[in-house]
């Protein structure tokens, strides 16, 4: 008997049908991956089974009984636990990991009114032992890595007798090692009979974990692939068109050197390294989370300093002391986590696509001081056309866009003026496959500047770059592929 069964579920928002006649089932001890471009209906389905939304039509059964949770708490009690992409909300900075683990027990009054540290530690440790995780119970929650927060959320769900675990992009902010540790944990859980619904854009995850891959498109279940999954085919089904092959066109580093680092040290104690990025070249830096990729990009962007060594830009000494210096020198950067590093909050001035793009260029575009809305809108319209941004127009809020389209707007911001060096930190975070291809094509179409990309996903690195280098312990290890050596096709490496 399936653990969870959905029969012709449907749900509409206004005139858009987010889910239409959607049927699906998952067995105990099974890992099923949900694949679908943004807007395919994945999150709507997850919200329905986790009690956030109600379905318009169709029905659910859980363990053979009708299941229609009205709130997330009801879903939790029934044994359906969702671990969200953003794990900041799992605990509270300033409280310990133990407190975070016991958070819902404080709420449901199963804890006595007076809590002692010893009791919190004891119960939290018991929870971790049951889950099979090793976490420092007394540490401040704020000191945990993203991966560890993920584990706290999962442990809490398991202690709640979860039978169905829903993971939404759990590895989006994890390094390769951390991801592998999570895979092992999830496979252990599977062996204990827990069903896992796994949502991810990363084929490496799905390959390591999924027993089945269910592909959604336009609110329907289009096809289910059993193991071994042909991911090329799955992705083509998902985006509804054939995939262009990955990089057969890696370019030799022919242009003059744009950025040169020599004897650079990121930390006073780390090993020095040299790095050169040429005009017309896309260079990717991969490495685990905390390897120093972001620190390097920030130093180049003037948002931090090198502990040693010198930087040259276009052959001249380059020592930016602020992002402003860097922008003036033609060095642009789209930071990691676009919501934090690039976008204005919803409902605030500057949330429009046009204003998002114009923010760094306000002085150049409005020399008289008064904003010229028409110019801004024209530039935004051009970007919308060029990058294929799906939006109602230049005045649309970026918050009405999907993740992939938001990222295109951020890229458009830095392409709106000619630059010399573009720095992109994790540019494919939460971006669906279709948009990713558009973004890669846009990045690679420019040969008037150098591009330096930091990504913790080696696959992405090979997919976008002419050359890939690895960073570890705050230093560059070696070059994987130089100039015009035979291109490695991204998806071949994993099959």
């Amino acid at each position, binding site marked *: 008997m399936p653990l969870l069964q959905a029969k012709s579920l449907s749900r509409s928002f206004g005139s858009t049908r987010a889910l239409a006649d959607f049927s699906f089932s998952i067995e105990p001890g099974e890992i099923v991956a949900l694949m679908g471009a943004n807007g395919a209906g994945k999150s709507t389905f997850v919200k329905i089974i986790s009690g956030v939304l109600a379905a318009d039509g169709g029905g659910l059964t859980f363990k053979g009984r009708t299941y229609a949770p009205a709130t997330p708490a009801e879903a939790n009690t029934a044994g359906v636990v969702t671990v969200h992409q953003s794990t900041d909300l799992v605990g509270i900075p300033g409280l310990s990991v133990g407190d975070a683990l016991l958070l819902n027990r404080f709420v449901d009054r199963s804890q006595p009114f007076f809590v002692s540290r010893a009791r919190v530690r004891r119960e939290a440790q018991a929870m971790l032992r049951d889950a099979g995780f090793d976490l420092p119970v007394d540490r401040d929650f704020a000191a945990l890595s993203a991966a560890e927060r993920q584990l706290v959320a999962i442990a809490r769900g398991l202690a709640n007798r979860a039978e169905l675990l829903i993971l939404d992009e759990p590895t989006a902010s994890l390094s390769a090692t951390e991801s592998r540790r999570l895979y092992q944990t999830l496979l252990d859980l599977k062996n204990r009979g827990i069903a896992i619904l796994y949502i991810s854009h990363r084929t490496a995850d799905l390959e390591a974990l999924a027993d089945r891959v269910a592909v959604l498109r336009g609110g329907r279940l289009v096809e289910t692939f059993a193991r071994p999954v042909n991911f090329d085919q799955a992705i083509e089904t998902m985006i509804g068109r054939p995939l262009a092959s990955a990089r057969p066109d890696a370019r030799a580093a022919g242009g003059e050197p744009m950025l040169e680092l020599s004897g650079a040290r990121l930390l006073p104690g780390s090993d020095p390294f040299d790095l050169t990025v040429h005009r017309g070249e896309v260079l990717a830096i991969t490495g685990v989370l905390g390897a120093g990729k972001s620190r390097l990009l920030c130093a180049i*962007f003037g*948002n931090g300093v090198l502990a040693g060594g010198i930087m040259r830009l276009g052959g001249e000494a380059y020592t930016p002391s*602020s*992002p*402003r210096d*860097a*922008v*003036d020198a033609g060095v642009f*950067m789209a*930071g990691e986590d676009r919501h*934090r*590093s*690039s*976008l*204005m*909050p919803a*409902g*605030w*001035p*500057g*949330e429009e696509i046009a*204003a998002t793009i114009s*923010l*760094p260029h*306000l*002085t150049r575009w*409005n020399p008289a*001081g*008064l*904003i010229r809305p028409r110019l801004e809108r024209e530039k935004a319209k051009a970007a919308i056309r060029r990058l294929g941004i799906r939006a109602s127009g230049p005045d649309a809020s970026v918050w009405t866009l999907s993740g992939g389209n938001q990222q295109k707007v951020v890229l458009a*911001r830095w392409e709106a003026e000619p630059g010399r060096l573009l720095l992109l930190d994790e540019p494919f975070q939460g971006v669906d496959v279709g948009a990713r291809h558009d973004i890669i094509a846009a990045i690679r179409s420019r040969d008037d500047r150098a591009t330096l990309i930091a990504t913790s996903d080696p696959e992405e690195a090979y997919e976008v770059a002419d050359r890939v280098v690895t960073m570890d312990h705050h230093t560059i290890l070696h070059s994987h592929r130089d100039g015009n050596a035979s291109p490695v096709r991204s998806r071949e490496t994993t099959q």
Partner: protein
Amino acid sequence: MTAQDNTPAAGTPARTGDGIRDILRSGAVFILLAALMIGFSLAEPAFINLNNLMSILQAVSVVAILGVGVTVTLAVGGFDLSIGAVAASSVMAASYAMIVWGLGTAETVALVLALGAVIGLLNALLIVRLKVPDLLATLAMMFLLTGLQLIPTAGRSISPGLILPDGATATGKYDPAFLTIGRSSLFGIVPLPVILMAVVAIALYVLTERTRIGRLLFATGGNELATRLAGGPTDRLKTLAYVISGTLASLGGIVVAARVGRGDVSSGGSLLMDAVAASLIGYAVLGLRRPNVLGTLVGAVFVGVLLNGLTMLNAPYYTQDFVKGAVLVGALALTYGIARKA
């Protein structure tokens, strides 16, 4: 009154209701203001007479000028709690400059405006350089100024013939030209403070809504990191905001001094709360749900109309704070609760 105006539209699920609802949401404060004015004029015909309307505007001009300053600091994601104290200190400083030092109008005005700007700079120093949270920094500055303004005169109010702490008698007096700032009217109709208020409001409206500086001020308040990473000088922008707010507060103080004609130690008591209330009521104006100069102006006028009308209808003076509080609660509920659901 809000509820009665809104219910029919809010209760209509039909699509045509959306347009009406939008208009109601963005225009709620204007509609209420019009309703109030019609109501008051029917109840008391003297209300609508031009002199009374001008006296309303004159009464709110200081609050509006200070409120615009608060609005600018709200735009950069800060908050200036020191404006009331800056205005009160400015009243004392202007009086001291003329009565004790015997300065003329121009010197006094320049000195007091500079004082406001310097206090703004000090606030910015605490907030931008020393990273003191804005509420705490400006609250501390408020305490400091409230005390500081008492020291030169040993706690006495300043009027001609003031006896100084060292026993000497001050010889200066208020410059008549200075008094015209608070007491004269253009063409005998529009009081000068009202013109000052209009100039400040228009200038700051243009600055915040139409210029790249304004865009950057709001950007700093919306997402400081993103603004810095886009090359925006966020520290300088925040400093600018506090300097503007300090300078406007001292301008407010000048208007008060020129109206009252003496340096009263208790002046400016309710200015801070009234100015903050005006800028928060402003969130509801046009349904913007964010600080905005036009809204602040309308918020200040709204409270002024209400108080004036109620006074004409013989409502006792001690109900004033209650009325202001009720308007603020209503406006915030409209901004955050009702408008969002609609």
